[in-house]
């Protein structure tokens, strides 16, 4: 065993994606504009919620444990909405992957979008593919240093803006922006910005496809979501092969449409050859389609040698028949099941959102002891009631029992049953419910009852069922 392999570790092979134009490139530019716009601008949208609440449309207020999304305000005990959104995001990803392959990776993944942006800067400063390869191979001189430093500086600015935008989601953006500029913001804000700046700079500028290939779990998982009906980026080798340079010779007739110009390889941000077939590295960004279509137009062949297609169409296409319509590939049991699940959770969450009340209570009967006998023989139960006022102003709540009961209610520390609760806050209130000595509840093991809370200003009511424990005489 003297034979040793070259190395068990490999350095990254640099990739210099060539500029490309076409349908999918334009689509990607559009998506980049929209997604980056959403990311950078959302914290600056204002939304009036009255004097006591923040006026930022989207705000994760960790200090006060509130999440604001336009007209929706999520309290910590409603975190299931966030869980539901994450489940929907997961199912949405499954749906899109089973229908259209890795469209998430190719168009909207932050890693892809920011890498695209960084490559744009790189091309603007250092030139297109060939110029960049030359620069890469050139010895360090003043020009190379100048270009590199300029490029890194622009990257760093983008990275700082990226990290900077993130923190604005967690506190009032204009205030924080002022604090950041006057160096008076919280150290946590600076640390967060520094970490996100570093990751953006490194991931977008230097790691790029390494993140997708070696760090991200999604390329491994996606195989389970895809099947032969999934529309994905592929090379029609039955049309392209045997590949070869077209020349005015007799042999040209035997060649396929692929002229082996390597345009698809030159534009690939992952540095692969799509003609090798489906590969884990492929993020289906479709830039090779644009590149190949361009070449096919120049050599007078129909477009689509590399194209979005379903692998199940291969036999038909090989036989010279047209592929099945796209909708037949997309509408199948798997995608319908994902859509149904996704929709069911969405409808359930919307329902939960609409039945939400601005006032709310939870009742915790004290079980230590289960009841207290008073000196006149009446039986008392004690409850801790958590009252929630989700409104932007202080409200007076009144607690009461259903009319059908003969139990008496008393509020600790308040002769009336009225409790004032500050705007957008909760209060833990102790209450006593008493059964007179002769009342059935006094001697019954358990009596069901319902506790009502009413907002005296609006008349809105909410209720909770609870139980009353009596003293069972042996």
């Amino acid at each position, binding site marked *: *065993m003297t034979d040793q392999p070259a190395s*068990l570790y490999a350095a990254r092979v640099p990739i210099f994606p060539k500029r490309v134009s076409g349908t999918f490139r334009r689509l990607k530019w559009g998506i980049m504009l929209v997604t980056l716009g959403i990311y950078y601008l959302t914290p600056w949208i204002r939304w009036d919620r009255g004097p006591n609440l923040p006026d930022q449309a989207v705000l994760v207020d960790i200090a006060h444990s509130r999440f604001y999304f336009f007209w929706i305000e999520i309290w910590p005990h409603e975190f299931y909405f966030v869980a539901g959104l994450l489940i929907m995001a997961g199912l949405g990803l499954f749906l899109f992957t089973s229908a259209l392959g890795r469209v998430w990776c190719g168009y909207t993944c932050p890693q892809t979008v920011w890498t695209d942006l960084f490559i744009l800067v790189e091309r603007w400063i250092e030139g297109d593919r060939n110029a960049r390869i030359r620069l890469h191979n050139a010895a360090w001189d003043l020009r190379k240093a100048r270009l590199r430093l300029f490029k890194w500086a622009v990257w760093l600015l983008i990275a700082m803006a990226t990290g900077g935008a993130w923190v604005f989601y967690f506190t009032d953006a204009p205030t924080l922006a002022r604090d950041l500029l006057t160096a008076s913001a919280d150290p946590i804000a600076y640390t967060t910005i520094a970490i996100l700046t570093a990751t953006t700079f490194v991931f977008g500028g230097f790691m790029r496809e390494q993140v997708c290939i*070696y760090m991200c779990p999604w390329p491994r998982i996606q195989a389970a979501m895809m099947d032969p009906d999934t529309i994905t980026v592929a090379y029609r080798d039955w049309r392209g092969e045997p590949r070869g340079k077209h020349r005015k010779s007799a042999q040209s007739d035997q060649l396929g449409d692929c002229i082996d110009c390597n345009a698809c390889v030159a534009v690939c941000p992952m540095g692969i050859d799509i003609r090798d077939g489906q590969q884990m590295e492929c993020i289906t960004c479709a830039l090779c389609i644009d590149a190949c279509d361009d070449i096919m137009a120049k050599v007078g062949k129909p477009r689509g040698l590399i194209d979005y297609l379903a692998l199940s169409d291969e036999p038909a296409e090989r036989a010279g028949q047209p592929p099945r319509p796209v909708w037949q590939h997309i509408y199948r049991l798997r995608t319908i099941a994902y859509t149904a699940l996704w929709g069911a959770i969405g409808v359930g969450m919307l329902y939960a959102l609409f039945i939400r009340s601005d006032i709310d209570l939870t009742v915790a009967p004290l079980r230590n002891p289960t009841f*207290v006998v008073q*000196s006149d023989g009446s039986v008392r139960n004690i409850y801790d009631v958590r009252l929630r006022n989700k409104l932007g102003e202080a409200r007076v709540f009144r607690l009461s029992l259903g009319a059908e009961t003969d139990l008496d209610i008393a509020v600790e520390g308040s002769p009336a049953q009225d409790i004032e609760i500050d705007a957008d806050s909760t209060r833990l209130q102790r209450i006593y419910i008493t059964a007179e000595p002769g009342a059935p509840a006094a001697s019954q093991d358990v009596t069901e009852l319902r506790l009502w809370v009413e907002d005296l200003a609006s008349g809105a009511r909410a209720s909770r069922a609870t139980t009353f424990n009596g003293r069972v005489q042996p």
Partner: protein
Amino acid sequence: MSDHKKIDDATGVETTGHSWDGIEELNNPLPRWWLWTFYLTIIWGIGYTIAYPAWPMISGATGGVLGWSTRANVAADIEAHEARNADLAIGLVEADLAVMSSSDDLHRYGVARGAAVFRAQCSQCHGSGAAGARGYPNLLDDDWLWGGAMDDIAYSVRHGIRNDTDIDARYSEMPAFDEMLSDGEIEAVVEYVVSLSSAEADSALAATGGEVFAAQCAACHMEDGSGDRGLGAPNLGDAIWLYGGDRAALEETVRYARFGVMPAWGQRLSEADVRAVSVYVHALGGGE
């Protein structure tokens, strides 16, 4: 090395040259940056153990050059917490508890602080839920031996009951009637006490017992058995019994008396804690 490069035919991937039963191991090289990341974590780990407490020694662990300690952090947290509440603690000591409103911030602070004191100091006898036990009064109900107003409760907490450490402790002593009354008289007076709160008593026997009661017990427990808070003499006509209300328990009480003791917490707790726990007990539901 490249002279020895072996390429697997099926995959086109280089092999390591290792072969078992004709199966060759492919070499898909790990990215080099990952190796560097691995080295970085090792360097980080070494730095971490230098900076933070880490290596176990014979007595304790290395302290770490940053001097970080969970114990010190907790102590600092407690100190900060007490500093934050210093004004409230002073306010509680200076406040007139009797007129304190339950919506008052000071009251809320008193209840919260008192609850903590109660769990640590009082729950051993009165129970974590304050429901008491046989011989240890239930603090949730509206029956009070020595009074249920805020000042009465605070006095009981501060000076205690029948202890010999505080000269101002609440004090009274019920006589043991075992030697002083005949068996018949004891049976009769027990029946009379039962009749005060229950219809199921032998009225003839109770009538006899009533005479004994008037002679022996009414001085403290009053003619009608309603008790005297000045002496900590319980109301015998209500539905609440500290040592049990059945005839056997009552007979035991009459024969041998009872002598419940409570420590003087004013000697053990700060004034703020005494007041806080009084506010807490008053707010348990029976406060007057």
